[in-house]
């Protein structure tokens, strides 16, 4: 799967950012976000975090999300975007819901009773009876087998890439030496 290089039309993308670093929702915070360009979003606060829900017109989801992150950081209110509100790890029930199919059918895809076979194995919790799958891998398989629009699979990759980078940046701030050491050691054991 790869991003289309053809010129793309603008369309509206819905997504939400979870934002830390702002302890209180004040008039100053609201004005700064509005003036930074977030007038196409609704700002709310829950669990002490800002939840900013966008409906943004852009040529791609990637452009929409990255421009929103830039604006939130540029608002000058100490905001730190933690992640795009979407979890890459999903249950079998989540998969069924995301593709609007029954859990039984998803189970049959997994076991090879239906579909072309080769369903991706789970990523974690594989020993406790509650396995989780990576939506990126699952949506890639679904798109390859014409069970999901390729754009949806690509969007899953975009969101996961952005969230991975945001998580890495936050961890880098907390424990820079650890991140550098792990990166270095992993590069040394690359096949």
């Amino acid at each position, binding site marked *: 799967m790869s991003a289309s290089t053809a010129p793309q039309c603008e369309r509206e993308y819905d997504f939400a950012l979870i934002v830390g670093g702002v302890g209180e929702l004040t*008039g100053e915070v609201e004005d700064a976000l509005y003036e930074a360009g977030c007038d196409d979003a609704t700002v*709310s606060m829950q669990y002490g975090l800002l939840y900013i829900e966008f409906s943004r017109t852009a040529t791609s989801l990637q452009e929409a999300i990255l421009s929103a992150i830039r604006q939130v950081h540029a608002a000058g209110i100490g905001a730190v975007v933690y992640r795009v509100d979407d979890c890459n790890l999903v249950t079998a029930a989540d998969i069924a819901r995301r593709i609007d199919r029954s859990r039984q059918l998803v189970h049959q895809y997994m076991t090879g009773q239906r579909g072309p076979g080769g369903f991706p194995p789970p990523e974690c919790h594989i020993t406790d009876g509650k396995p989780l799958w990576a939506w990126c891998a699952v949506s890639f398989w679904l798109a390859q087998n014409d069970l999901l629009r390729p754009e949806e699979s690509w969007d899953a990759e975009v969101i996961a890439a952005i969230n991975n980078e945001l998580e890495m940046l936050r961890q880098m701030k907390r424990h820079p030496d650890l991140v550098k050491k792990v990166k270095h050691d992993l590069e040394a054991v690359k096949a």
Partner: protein
Amino acid sequence: MPMARKRHSKPEVEKAIQYAEALGWRVEKGKNHAIYRLYCPHATRAGCQVSVWSTPKNPGNHARQIRAAVDRCPHQPPTDGTEQEDP
């Protein structure tokens, strides 16, 4: 629900505010870009808050997002009690 405030100039946003009010949310007047701030019934710092723009870029989207934020609030009983998550 008595309304001791000015109506929002965008009817769809006004309806979303009234939706929140009907579920026990409190409406406080804001200033500048956020004309109102909505507070959920759990009136502490841990409660939910939603900012309402005076001039949202797209009033229809803003109204939909306000309703979604109200529906996400964990501090109010479900409206019909039928929504159950898959285990």
